[in-house]
Protein backbone atom coordinates (compact mmCIF):
# COMPACT_ATOMS: atom_id res chain seq x y z
CA UNK A 1 0.00 0.00 0.00
CA UNK A 2 1.25 3.40 -0.92
CA UNK A 3 2.23 5.65 1.90
CA UNK A 4 -0.60 8.01 2.75
CA UNK A 5 0.19 11.22 4.53
CA UNK A 6 -1.15 14.74 4.81
CA UNK A 7 0.53 16.04 1.66
CA UNK A 8 -0.61 13.12 -0.50
CA UNK A 9 -4.19 13.64 0.68
CA UNK A 10 -3.97 17.36 -0.01
CA UNK A 11 -2.78 16.58 -3.52
CA UNK A 12 -5.57 14.07 -4.11
CA UNK A 13 -8.21 16.52 -2.96
CA UNK A 14 -6.77 19.28 -5.12
CA UNK A 15 -6.82 17.03 -8.19
CA UNK A 16 -10.39 15.91 -7.64
CA UNK A 17 -12.09 19.02 -6.25
CA UNK A 18 -9.81 21.93 -7.20
CA UNK A 19 -10.95 25.17 -5.62
CA UNK A 20 -13.97 23.59 -3.96
CA UNK A 21 -11.70 22.38 -1.19
CA UNK A 22 -9.92 25.32 0.37
CA UNK A 23 -8.38 26.57 3.58
CA UNK A 24 -5.89 23.73 3.83
CA UNK A 25 -4.13 23.88 7.17
CA UNK A 26 -2.37 21.53 9.56
CA UNK A 27 -2.80 22.74 13.14
CA UNK A 28 -0.93 20.37 15.49
CA UNK A 29 -0.41 17.97 12.60
CA UNK A 30 -4.11 17.39 11.98
CA UNK A 31 -5.01 18.07 8.36
CA UNK A 32 -7.88 20.56 8.17
CA UNK A 33 -9.77 21.50 5.01
CA UNK A 34 -12.83 23.57 4.25
CA UNK A 35 -15.45 22.87 1.66
CA UNK A 36 -18.97 23.89 0.74
CA UNK A 37 -22.27 22.25 1.52
CA UNK A 38 -22.91 21.52 -2.16
CA UNK A 39 -20.06 19.05 -2.37
CA UNK A 40 -19.70 17.91 1.25
CA UNK A 41 -21.19 14.46 0.71
CA UNK A 42 -19.04 14.00 -2.38
CA UNK A 43 -15.94 15.06 -0.47
CA UNK A 44 -16.75 12.71 2.40
CA UNK A 45 -17.47 9.85 0.03
CA UNK A 46 -14.24 10.54 -1.83
CA UNK A 47 -12.27 10.58 1.42
CA UNK A 48 -13.96 7.42 2.61
CA UNK A 49 -13.78 5.31 -0.51
CA UNK A 50 -10.74 6.43 -2.49
CA UNK A 51 -7.75 4.14 -2.30
CA UNK A 52 -5.26 6.89 -1.53
CA UNK A 53 -7.33 8.46 1.25
CA UNK A 54 -9.13 5.64 2.99
CA UNK A 55 -10.68 7.65 5.82
CA UNK A 56 -13.14 4.88 6.56
CA UNK A 57 -13.90 5.79 10.16
CA UNK A 58 -16.13 8.69 11.12
CA UNK A 59 -14.82 9.91 14.44
CA UNK A 60 -17.14 12.78 15.12
CA UNK A 61 -19.55 15.37 13.80
CA UNK A 62 -20.12 18.61 15.63
CA UNK A 63 -20.64 22.30 14.97
CA UNK A 64 -19.31 25.68 16.04
CA UNK A 65 -21.22 28.95 15.99
CA UNK A 66 -19.47 32.15 14.87
CA UNK A 67 -21.96 34.97 15.47
CA UNK A 68 -19.49 37.63 14.27
CA UNK A 69 -19.48 36.26 10.75
CA UNK A 70 -23.04 34.88 11.10
CA UNK A 71 -21.87 31.40 10.28
CA UNK A 72 -22.14 27.94 11.74
CA UNK A 73 -19.27 25.60 10.97
CA UNK A 74 -20.17 21.93 10.76
CA UNK A 75 -17.03 19.96 11.59
CA UNK A 76 -16.37 16.36 10.57
CA UNK A 77 -13.46 14.36 11.96
CA UNK A 78 -12.48 11.35 9.88
CA UNK A 79 -9.83 8.80 10.68
CA UNK A 80 -7.70 6.47 8.60
CA UNK A 81 -6.86 3.78 11.11
CA UNK A 82 -4.46 1.91 8.87
CA UNK A 83 -2.16 4.82 8.10
CA UNK A 84 -2.95 6.52 11.41
CA UNK A 85 -3.89 9.89 10.04
CA UNK A 86 -6.89 12.06 10.66
CA UNK A 87 -8.62 14.75 8.68
CA UNK A 88 -10.96 17.50 9.77
CA UNK A 89 -13.46 18.78 7.21
CA UNK A 90 -15.29 22.03 7.87
CA UNK A 91 -18.31 23.43 6.14
CA UNK A 92 -19.40 26.99 6.86
CA UNK A 93 -23.12 27.55 6.46
CA UNK A 94 -25.12 30.69 7.14
CA UNK A 95 -26.82 30.82 10.53
CA UNK A 96 -30.12 31.89 8.95
CA UNK A 97 -30.23 28.89 6.61
CA UNK A 98 -28.52 26.10 8.53
CA UNK A 99 -29.13 23.31 6.05
CA UNK A 100 -26.61 20.70 4.96
CA UNK A 101 -26.93 17.24 3.38
CA UNK A 102 -26.72 14.31 5.74
CA UNK A 103 -23.75 11.99 6.09
CA UNK A 104 -25.95 9.08 7.17
CA UNK A 105 -25.80 7.86 3.57
CA UNK A 106 -22.15 7.03 4.23
CA UNK A 107 -22.07 6.04 7.91
CA UNK A 108 -24.88 4.88 10.15
CA UNK A 109 -22.88 6.27 13.05
CA UNK A 110 -23.58 9.76 11.74
CA UNK A 111 -27.21 9.38 12.76
CA UNK A 112 -26.90 10.32 16.43
CA UNK A 113 -24.01 12.71 15.89
CA UNK A 114 -26.19 14.70 13.49
CA UNK A 115 -29.14 14.53 15.83
CA UNK A 116 -26.94 15.99 18.56
CA UNK A 117 -25.71 18.74 16.25
CA UNK A 118 -29.29 19.51 15.25
CA UNK A 119 -30.37 19.56 18.86
CA UNK A 120 -27.72 22.03 19.97
CA UNK A 121 -27.17 24.19 16.88
CA UNK A 122 -30.34 23.80 14.83
CA UNK A 123 -28.41 22.50 11.83
CA UNK A 124 -30.90 20.71 9.60
CA UNK A 125 -29.39 17.66 7.94
CA UNK A 126 -31.32 17.11 4.73
CA UNK A 127 -32.21 13.49 4.15
CA UNK A 128 -31.59 12.41 7.75
CA UNK A 129 -33.95 9.52 8.53
CA UNK A 130 -34.91 10.62 12.03
CA UNK A 131 -33.93 14.21 12.78
CA UNK A 132 -35.27 14.70 16.30
CA UNK A 133 -33.80 16.26 19.40
CA UNK A 134 -31.69 13.80 21.31
CA UNK A 135 -30.48 15.20 24.63
CA UNK A 136 -32.80 18.15 25.23
CA UNK A 137 -36.53 17.92 25.75
CA UNK A 138 -38.68 18.02 22.65
CA UNK A 139 -40.57 21.11 23.86
CA UNK A 140 -37.44 23.25 24.00
CA UNK A 141 -37.82 25.96 21.40
CA UNK A 142 -34.18 27.06 21.18
CA UNK A 143 -30.93 25.47 20.11
CA UNK A 144 -28.94 26.15 23.25
CA UNK A 145 -25.33 25.98 22.04
CA UNK A 146 -25.78 29.01 19.78
CA UNK A 147 -23.81 31.88 21.17
CA UNK A 148 -26.77 34.23 21.61
CA UNK A 149 -28.06 32.13 24.48
CA UNK A 150 -26.29 32.99 27.72
CA UNK A 151 -25.37 30.31 30.21
CA UNK A 152 -27.24 31.93 33.04
CA UNK A 153 -30.03 34.46 33.37
CA UNK A 154 -28.37 37.72 32.27
CA UNK A 155 -30.57 39.70 34.67
CA UNK A 156 -28.96 38.21 37.74
CA UNK A 157 -27.17 40.91 39.70
CA UNK A 158 -25.52 38.74 42.33
CA UNK A 159 -23.21 36.91 39.98
CA UNK A 160 -21.58 39.23 37.49
CA UNK A 161 -19.07 37.45 35.31
CA UNK A 162 -16.55 40.30 35.37
CA UNK A 163 -16.01 39.77 39.09
CA UNK A 164 -14.81 36.28 38.32
CA UNK A 165 -12.64 37.25 35.40
CA UNK A 166 -14.72 35.30 32.93
Amino acid at each position, binding site marked *: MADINNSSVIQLLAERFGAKVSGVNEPYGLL*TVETTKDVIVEVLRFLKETEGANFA*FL*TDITAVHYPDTKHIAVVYHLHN*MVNKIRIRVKVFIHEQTPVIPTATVLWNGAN*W*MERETYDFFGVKFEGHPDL*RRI*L*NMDELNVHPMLKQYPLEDPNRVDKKDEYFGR
Partner: protein
Amino acid sequence: MNHNQPVYTDNDPQSELVTLNLGPTHPATHGVFQNVLQLDGERIVSGVSTIGYIHRAFEKIAEHRPFYQITPLTDRLNYCSSPINNMGWHMTVEKLLNITVPKRVDYLRIIVMELARISDHIICNTIIAQDTGATTTFLYLFQFREHIYEIYEEICGARLTTNIGRIGGFERDFNDIAFAKINKFLKEFPVALREFESLLNRNRIFIDRTAGVACVTPEQALDYSWSGPLLRATGVDYDVRVSEPYCSYDEFDFEVPVGTSGDIYDRYLVRNEEMWQSVSLIEQALEKIKHEPAGVFHADVPDFYLPAKEEVYNNMEALIYHFKIVMGEIDAPKAEVYHAVEGGNGELGFYLINDGGRTPYRLHFRRPSFINYSMYAKMSEGMLLSDAIINMSSMNIIAGELDA
Protein backbone atom coordinates in the same frame (compact mmCIF):
# COMPACT_ATOMS: atom_id res chain seq x y z
CA MET B 1 -44.00 13.77 20.88
CA ASN B 2 -44.88 13.77 24.53
CA HIS B 3 -42.30 12.18 26.80
CA ASN B 4 -44.86 10.61 29.06
CA GLN B 5 -46.54 8.73 26.28
CA PRO B 6 -45.14 5.51 24.87
CA VAL B 7 -43.83 5.82 21.36
CA TYR B 8 -46.07 3.03 20.20
CA THR B 9 -49.79 2.93 20.76
CA ASP B 10 -51.71 -0.20 21.50
CA ASN B 11 -54.85 1.05 19.81
CA ASP B 12 -54.91 -1.68 17.20
CA PRO B 13 -57.09 -4.43 18.70
CA GLN B 14 -55.63 -6.95 16.25
CA SER B 15 -52.10 -6.27 17.34
CA GLU B 16 -50.52 -8.98 19.40
CA LEU B 17 -47.45 -6.94 20.18
CA VAL B 18 -46.81 -5.57 23.64
CA THR B 19 -45.16 -2.23 24.31
CA LEU B 20 -42.64 -2.29 27.11
CA ASN B 21 -40.99 0.77 28.61
CA LEU B 22 -37.57 -0.43 29.69
CA GLY B 23 -36.32 2.39 31.84
CA PRO B 24 -35.64 5.27 32.50
CA THR B 25 -35.22 3.86 36.00
CA HIS B 26 -34.99 0.14 35.79
CA PRO B 27 -32.57 -2.04 37.75
CA ALA B 28 -31.42 -3.77 34.57
CA THR B 29 -30.41 -0.65 32.68
CA HIS B 30 -27.68 0.44 35.15
CA GLY B 31 -28.26 4.08 34.36
CA VAL B 32 -30.93 6.56 33.48
CA PHE B 33 -32.00 5.90 29.93
CA GLN B 34 -35.11 4.55 28.36
CA ASN B 35 -35.87 2.07 25.62
CA VAL B 36 -39.41 1.69 24.37
CA LEU B 37 -39.58 -1.82 23.03
CA GLN B 38 -42.24 -3.61 21.10
CA LEU B 39 -42.35 -7.23 22.05
CA ASP B 40 -43.76 -10.29 20.40
CA GLY B 41 -43.74 -12.67 23.31
CA GLU B 42 -40.18 -12.47 24.59
CA ARG B 43 -38.75 -11.32 21.31
CA ILE B 44 -38.07 -7.68 20.53
CA VAL B 45 -39.62 -6.54 17.27
CA SER B 46 -38.39 -2.98 17.35
CA GLY B 47 -37.11 -0.43 19.80
CA VAL B 48 -36.57 3.27 20.23
CA SER B 49 -33.88 4.64 22.53
CA THR B 50 -34.56 7.83 24.43
CA ILE B 51 -31.60 9.45 26.13
CA GLY B 52 -30.79 12.77 27.74
CA TYR B 53 -32.18 12.19 31.23
CA ILE B 54 -29.01 13.45 32.91
CA HIS B 55 -27.92 15.98 30.32
CA ARG B 56 -26.05 18.73 32.17
CA ALA B 57 -24.93 21.03 29.34
CA PHE B 58 -21.21 20.54 29.99
CA GLU B 59 -20.21 21.89 26.61
CA LYS B 60 -22.09 25.12 27.29
CA ILE B 61 -20.73 25.42 30.81
CA ALA B 62 -17.19 24.79 29.54
CA GLU B 63 -17.42 27.86 27.33
CA HIS B 64 -17.63 29.94 30.49
CA ARG B 65 -14.96 28.26 32.61
CA PRO B 66 -11.19 28.66 32.56
CA PHE B 67 -9.30 25.53 31.61
CA TYR B 68 -8.50 24.38 35.12
CA GLN B 69 -12.16 24.59 36.12
CA ILE B 70 -13.20 22.26 33.32
CA THR B 71 -11.44 19.25 34.89
CA PRO B 72 -14.30 18.66 37.38
CA LEU B 73 -16.74 18.65 34.47
CA THR B 74 -14.80 15.86 32.76
CA ASP B 75 -15.01 13.81 35.98
CA ARG B 76 -18.69 13.51 35.47
CA LEU B 77 -18.56 12.11 31.95
CA ASN B 78 -17.58 8.51 32.49
CA TYR B 79 -17.69 8.55 36.27
CA CYS B 80 -16.50 4.96 36.48
CA SER B 81 -13.09 5.98 35.17
CA SER B 82 -12.85 9.69 35.95
CA PRO B 83 -9.03 9.83 36.01
CA ILE B 84 -8.82 8.91 32.31
CA ASN B 85 -11.12 11.81 31.50
CA ASN B 86 -9.10 14.15 33.72
CA MET B 87 -5.79 13.14 32.16
CA GLY B 88 -7.28 13.36 28.68
CA TRP B 89 -8.35 16.91 29.36
CA HIS B 90 -4.99 17.93 30.86
CA MET B 91 -3.18 16.47 27.87
CA THR B 92 -5.48 18.34 25.49
CA VAL B 93 -4.62 21.64 27.13
CA GLU B 94 -0.95 20.72 27.28
CA LYS B 95 -1.06 19.99 23.56
CA LEU B 96 -2.67 23.40 23.00
CA LEU B 97 0.01 25.13 25.04
CA ASN B 98 2.90 22.96 23.80
CA ILE B 99 3.83 21.87 27.29
CA THR B 100 6.12 18.87 27.64
CA VAL B 101 5.73 17.13 30.96
CA PRO B 102 8.55 15.23 32.69
CA LYS B 103 8.73 11.48 32.13
CA ARG B 104 7.93 10.74 35.74
CA VAL B 105 4.62 12.59 35.39
CA ASP B 106 3.81 10.48 32.32
CA TYR B 107 4.43 7.30 34.26
CA LEU B 108 2.40 8.46 37.24
CA ARG B 109 -0.41 9.29 34.86
CA ILE B 110 -0.22 5.87 33.29
CA ILE B 111 -0.55 4.28 36.73
CA VAL B 112 -3.66 6.32 37.47
CA MET B 113 -5.19 5.78 34.04
CA GLU B 114 -4.64 2.03 34.07
CA LEU B 115 -6.10 1.77 37.56
CA ALA B 116 -9.12 3.62 36.21
CA ARG B 117 -9.33 1.27 33.25
CA ILE B 118 -9.29 -1.70 35.59
CA SER B 119 -12.06 -0.24 37.72
CA ASP B 120 -14.11 0.50 34.61
CA HIS B 121 -13.72 -3.04 33.29
CA ILE B 122 -14.42 -4.52 36.73
CA ILE B 123 -17.77 -2.78 36.69
CA CYS B 124 -18.65 -3.92 33.21
CA ASN B 125 -17.56 -7.54 33.50
CA THR B 126 -18.96 -8.17 36.95
CA ILE B 127 -22.26 -6.68 35.86
CA ILE B 128 -22.43 -8.96 32.83
CA ALA B 129 -21.94 -11.81 35.26
CA GLN B 130 -24.52 -10.36 37.64
CA ASP B 131 -27.09 -10.02 34.88
CA THR B 132 -26.57 -13.61 33.83
CA GLY B 133 -27.26 -14.62 37.42
CA ALA B 134 -23.78 -15.00 38.90
CA THR B 135 -23.91 -12.77 41.96
CA THR B 136 -20.90 -14.40 43.58
CA THR B 137 -18.46 -13.19 40.97
CA PHE B 138 -19.87 -9.70 41.20
CA LEU B 139 -19.21 -9.51 44.92
CA TYR B 140 -15.81 -11.17 44.53
CA LEU B 141 -14.25 -8.69 42.19
CA PHE B 142 -16.17 -5.59 43.11
CA GLN B 143 -14.23 -5.09 46.33
CA PHE B 144 -11.18 -4.29 44.22
CA ARG B 145 -12.94 -1.27 42.85
CA GLU B 146 -13.06 -0.11 46.45
CA HIS B 147 -9.30 -0.70 46.76
CA ILE B 148 -8.73 1.38 43.63
CA TYR B 149 -10.85 4.17 45.09
CA GLU B 150 -8.72 4.04 48.21
CA ILE B 151 -5.65 4.59 46.03
CA TYR B 152 -7.33 7.59 44.39
CA GLU B 153 -8.17 8.88 47.85
CA GLU B 154 -4.52 8.69 48.79
CA ILE B 155 -3.45 10.49 45.61
CA CYS B 156 -6.02 13.28 45.42
CA GLY B 157 -8.44 12.98 48.34
CA ALA B 158 -11.50 12.12 46.28
CA ARG B 159 -12.96 8.78 45.33
CA LEU B 160 -15.47 8.88 42.50
CA THR B 161 -15.29 12.27 40.84
CA THR B 162 -11.59 12.54 41.32
CA ASN B 163 -10.35 15.78 39.73
CA ILE B 164 -6.88 14.19 39.75
CA GLY B 165 -4.00 16.19 38.41
CA ARG B 166 -3.55 19.67 37.06
CA ILE B 167 -2.51 21.12 33.74
CA GLY B 168 1.20 20.32 33.67
CA GLY B 169 1.23 17.44 36.12
CA PHE B 170 -0.22 16.56 39.49
CA GLU B 171 -1.23 18.80 42.36
CA ARG B 172 1.00 16.80 44.71
CA ASP B 173 3.33 13.85 44.59
CA PHE B 174 2.13 10.31 45.29
CA ASN B 175 2.86 9.60 48.92
CA ASP B 176 4.39 6.42 50.33
CA ILE B 177 1.01 5.09 51.40
CA ALA B 178 -0.25 5.45 47.84
CA PHE B 179 2.67 3.43 46.49
CA ALA B 180 2.20 0.86 49.23
CA LYS B 181 -1.47 0.54 48.33
CA ILE B 182 -0.67 0.21 44.64
CA ASN B 183 1.82 -2.54 45.39
CA LYS B 184 -0.68 -4.30 47.62
CA PHE B 185 -3.28 -4.04 44.87
CA LEU B 186 -0.86 -5.49 42.32
CA LYS B 187 -0.28 -8.45 44.63
CA GLU B 188 -3.90 -9.18 45.47
CA PHE B 189 -5.81 -8.28 42.33
CA PRO B 190 -4.31 -10.89 39.97
CA VAL B 191 -5.30 -13.63 42.42
CA ALA B 192 -8.90 -12.44 42.48
CA LEU B 193 -9.01 -11.88 38.73
CA ARG B 194 -7.74 -15.39 38.10
CA GLU B 195 -10.42 -16.71 40.43
CA PHE B 196 -13.02 -14.59 38.66
CA GLU B 197 -11.94 -16.00 35.32
CA SER B 198 -11.96 -19.56 36.60
CA LEU B 199 -15.56 -19.05 37.72
CA LEU B 200 -16.77 -17.71 34.39
CA ASN B 201 -14.52 -18.37 31.40
CA ARG B 202 -15.40 -22.05 31.05
CA ASN B 203 -18.74 -21.82 32.82
CA ARG B 204 -21.35 -23.59 30.73
CA ILE B 205 -24.25 -21.40 31.85
CA PHE B 206 -22.28 -18.22 31.25
CA ILE B 207 -21.14 -19.32 27.81
CA ASP B 208 -24.66 -20.36 26.85
CA ARG B 209 -25.97 -16.96 27.81
CA THR B 210 -23.23 -14.90 26.15
CA ALA B 211 -21.54 -16.73 23.27
CA GLY B 212 -23.14 -16.06 19.92
CA VAL B 213 -25.40 -13.39 21.37
CA ALA B 214 -25.40 -9.91 19.83
CA CYS B 215 -22.70 -10.72 17.28
CA VAL B 216 -21.37 -7.68 15.46
CA THR B 217 -19.21 -7.77 12.37
CA PRO B 218 -16.22 -5.42 12.07
CA GLU B 219 -17.94 -3.71 9.14
CA GLN B 220 -21.02 -2.95 11.19
CA ALA B 221 -18.94 -1.78 14.12
CA LEU B 222 -16.90 0.61 11.98
CA ASP B 223 -20.04 1.80 10.21
CA TYR B 224 -21.48 2.82 13.58
CA SER B 225 -18.16 4.41 14.63
CA TRP B 226 -17.66 2.00 17.50
CA SER B 227 -14.39 2.14 19.38
CA GLY B 228 -12.77 0.63 22.44
CA PRO B 229 -13.30 -2.92 23.72
CA LEU B 230 -16.52 -3.25 21.72
CA LEU B 231 -14.71 -2.62 18.44
CA ARG B 232 -11.77 -4.80 19.45
CA ALA B 233 -14.13 -7.66 20.28
CA THR B 234 -15.18 -7.67 16.62
CA GLY B 235 -11.54 -8.13 15.58
CA VAL B 236 -10.35 -4.61 14.75
CA ASP B 237 -7.12 -3.90 16.61
CA TYR B 238 -7.67 -0.19 17.09
CA ASP B 239 -6.42 1.20 20.37
CA VAL B 240 -5.57 4.90 20.69
CA ARG B 241 -2.71 4.02 23.06
CA VAL B 242 -0.98 2.19 20.21
CA SER B 243 -2.31 4.04 17.20
CA GLU B 244 -1.47 7.53 18.44
CA PRO B 245 0.65 7.02 21.55
CA TYR B 246 0.24 9.72 24.15
CA CYS B 247 1.73 9.97 27.61
CA SER B 248 4.76 7.77 26.70
CA TYR B 249 2.63 4.67 26.04
CA ASP B 250 5.00 3.90 23.17
CA GLU B 251 7.72 2.99 25.68
CA PHE B 252 5.62 0.27 27.20
CA ASP B 253 5.30 -3.34 26.26
CA PHE B 254 1.69 -4.45 26.11
CA GLU B 255 -0.72 -6.26 23.86
CA VAL B 256 -4.04 -5.23 22.40
CA PRO B 257 -6.43 -8.16 22.77
CA VAL B 258 -8.95 -8.67 19.99
CA GLY B 259 -11.97 -10.93 19.64
CA THR B 260 -13.32 -12.71 16.61
CA SER B 261 -17.10 -12.64 16.62
CA GLY B 262 -17.96 -9.43 18.47
CA ASP B 263 -20.45 -11.22 20.71
CA ILE B 264 -20.91 -10.63 24.42
CA TYR B 265 -18.53 -13.43 25.37
CA ASP B 266 -15.76 -11.88 23.24
CA ARG B 267 -16.34 -8.47 24.77
CA TYR B 268 -16.05 -10.05 28.20
CA LEU B 269 -12.81 -11.81 27.27
CA VAL B 270 -11.33 -8.67 25.69
CA ARG B 271 -12.05 -6.64 28.82
CA ASN B 272 -10.59 -9.34 31.05
CA GLU B 273 -7.41 -9.50 29.03
CA GLU B 274 -7.17 -5.71 29.09
CA MET B 275 -7.21 -5.85 32.86
CA TRP B 276 -4.21 -8.19 32.75
CA GLN B 277 -2.45 -5.81 30.37
CA SER B 278 -3.24 -2.89 32.67
CA VAL B 279 -1.74 -4.71 35.63
CA SER B 280 1.40 -5.30 33.60
CA LEU B 281 1.47 -1.63 32.50
CA ILE B 282 1.28 -0.46 36.10
CA GLU B 283 4.12 -2.79 37.06
CA GLN B 284 6.23 -1.48 34.19
CA ALA B 285 5.46 2.11 35.12
CA LEU B 286 6.46 1.52 38.74
CA GLU B 287 9.72 0.02 37.51
CA LYS B 288 10.40 2.97 35.21
CA ILE B 289 9.70 5.50 37.93
CA LYS B 290 12.62 4.14 39.93
CA HIS B 291 14.98 5.42 37.24
CA GLU B 292 13.51 8.92 37.22
CA PRO B 293 14.46 11.73 39.60
CA ALA B 294 12.28 11.45 42.69
CA GLY B 295 9.87 14.17 43.71
CA VAL B 296 9.14 15.50 40.22
CA PHE B 297 5.40 15.69 39.80
CA HIS B 298 4.72 18.61 37.51
CA ALA B 299 6.21 20.50 34.59
CA ASP B 300 7.69 23.94 35.05
CA VAL B 301 4.85 26.03 33.62
CA PRO B 302 4.20 28.80 36.15
CA ASP B 303 1.75 30.51 33.81
CA PHE B 304 -0.74 27.67 34.09
CA TYR B 305 0.24 25.48 37.04
CA LEU B 306 -1.08 26.86 40.33
CA PRO B 307 1.80 27.28 42.80
CA ALA B 308 1.73 25.57 46.18
CA LYS B 309 -0.20 27.48 48.83
CA GLU B 310 2.75 27.95 51.19
CA GLU B 311 4.71 29.54 48.37
CA VAL B 312 1.83 31.87 47.57
CA TYR B 313 1.94 33.17 51.14
CA ASN B 314 5.71 33.52 51.35
CA ASN B 315 6.97 34.18 47.88
CA MET B 316 6.31 37.22 45.70
CA GLU B 317 6.50 35.49 42.31
CA ALA B 318 4.24 32.66 43.34
CA LEU B 319 1.70 35.18 44.61
CA ILE B 320 1.76 37.01 41.29
CA TYR B 321 1.29 33.83 39.29
CA HIS B 322 -1.47 32.66 41.59
CA PHE B 323 -3.25 35.98 41.16
CA LYS B 324 -2.83 35.99 37.41
CA ILE B 325 -4.10 32.43 37.00
CA VAL B 326 -7.09 32.86 39.28
CA MET B 327 -8.09 36.27 37.98
CA GLY B 328 -7.71 35.15 34.40
CA GLU B 329 -4.99 37.42 33.13
CA ILE B 330 -3.12 34.75 31.20
CA ASP B 331 -4.35 33.99 27.75
CA ALA B 332 -3.88 30.76 25.87
CA PRO B 333 -2.93 30.76 22.18
CA LYS B 334 -5.52 30.99 19.45
CA ALA B 335 -5.71 27.47 18.13
CA GLU B 336 -7.74 24.41 17.42
CA VAL B 337 -6.81 21.01 18.78
CA TYR B 338 -8.23 17.50 18.84
CA HIS B 339 -6.80 15.06 21.32
CA ALA B 340 -7.99 11.53 21.90
CA VAL B 341 -7.26 9.08 24.68
CA GLU B 342 -8.32 5.48 25.09
CA GLY B 343 -11.09 5.69 27.65
CA GLY B 344 -12.74 2.76 29.35
CA ASN B 345 -15.29 2.54 26.56
CA GLY B 346 -13.30 3.71 23.58
CA GLU B 347 -11.87 6.76 21.95
CA LEU B 348 -12.54 9.70 24.23
CA GLY B 349 -11.86 12.82 22.19
CA PHE B 350 -11.60 16.45 23.17
CA TYR B 351 -12.13 18.95 20.37
CA LEU B 352 -11.05 22.32 21.71
CA ILE B 353 -11.23 25.62 19.87
CA ASN B 354 -9.61 28.54 21.61
CA ASP B 355 -10.00 32.08 20.37
CA GLY B 356 -7.20 33.46 22.50
CA GLY B 357 -9.05 33.90 25.78
CA ARG B 358 -8.83 31.89 28.96
CA THR B 359 -12.02 29.93 28.33
CA PRO B 360 -12.59 27.66 25.34
CA TYR B 361 -14.50 29.18 22.48
CA ARG B 362 -15.95 25.74 21.91
CA LEU B 363 -15.28 22.43 23.55
CA HIS B 364 -16.76 19.21 22.26
CA PHE B 365 -16.42 15.84 23.91
CA ARG B 366 -16.37 12.80 21.64
CA ARG B 367 -18.05 10.46 24.07
CA PRO B 368 -17.65 6.77 23.23
CA SER B 369 -20.74 5.65 25.17
CA PHE B 370 -22.93 8.03 23.20
CA ILE B 371 -21.61 6.88 19.88
CA ASN B 372 -21.52 3.16 20.74
CA TYR B 373 -25.06 3.25 22.07
CA SER B 374 -26.58 4.48 18.81
CA MET B 375 -26.59 0.92 17.47
CA TYR B 376 -28.38 -0.55 20.48
CA ALA B 377 -32.00 -0.25 19.35
CA LYS B 378 -31.13 -1.58 15.92
CA MET B 379 -29.14 -4.46 17.40
CA SER B 380 -31.97 -5.45 19.69
CA GLU B 381 -34.39 -6.16 16.89
CA GLY B 382 -35.08 -9.84 16.82
CA MET B 383 -33.28 -10.45 20.09
CA LEU B 384 -34.74 -12.00 23.22
CA LEU B 385 -35.47 -9.45 25.91
CA SER B 386 -33.15 -11.23 28.34
CA ASP B 387 -30.34 -11.15 25.76
CA ALA B 388 -30.91 -7.46 25.13
CA ILE B 389 -30.42 -6.81 28.84
CA ILE B 390 -26.99 -8.47 28.97
CA ASN B 391 -26.14 -6.88 25.64
CA MET B 392 -26.68 -3.52 27.29
CA SER B 393 -24.52 -4.51 30.28
CA SER B 394 -21.74 -5.64 27.96
CA MET B 395 -21.73 -2.32 26.12
CA ASN B 396 -20.95 -0.62 29.44
CA ILE B 397 -23.09 2.41 28.73
CA ILE B 398 -22.40 5.01 31.40
CA ALA B 399 -25.23 7.54 31.60
CA GLY B 400 -22.90 10.42 32.40
CA GLU B 401 -20.88 9.84 29.28
CA LEU B 402 -23.99 9.20 27.23
CA ASP B 403 -25.58 12.55 28.00
CA ALA B 404 -22.69 14.89 28.88
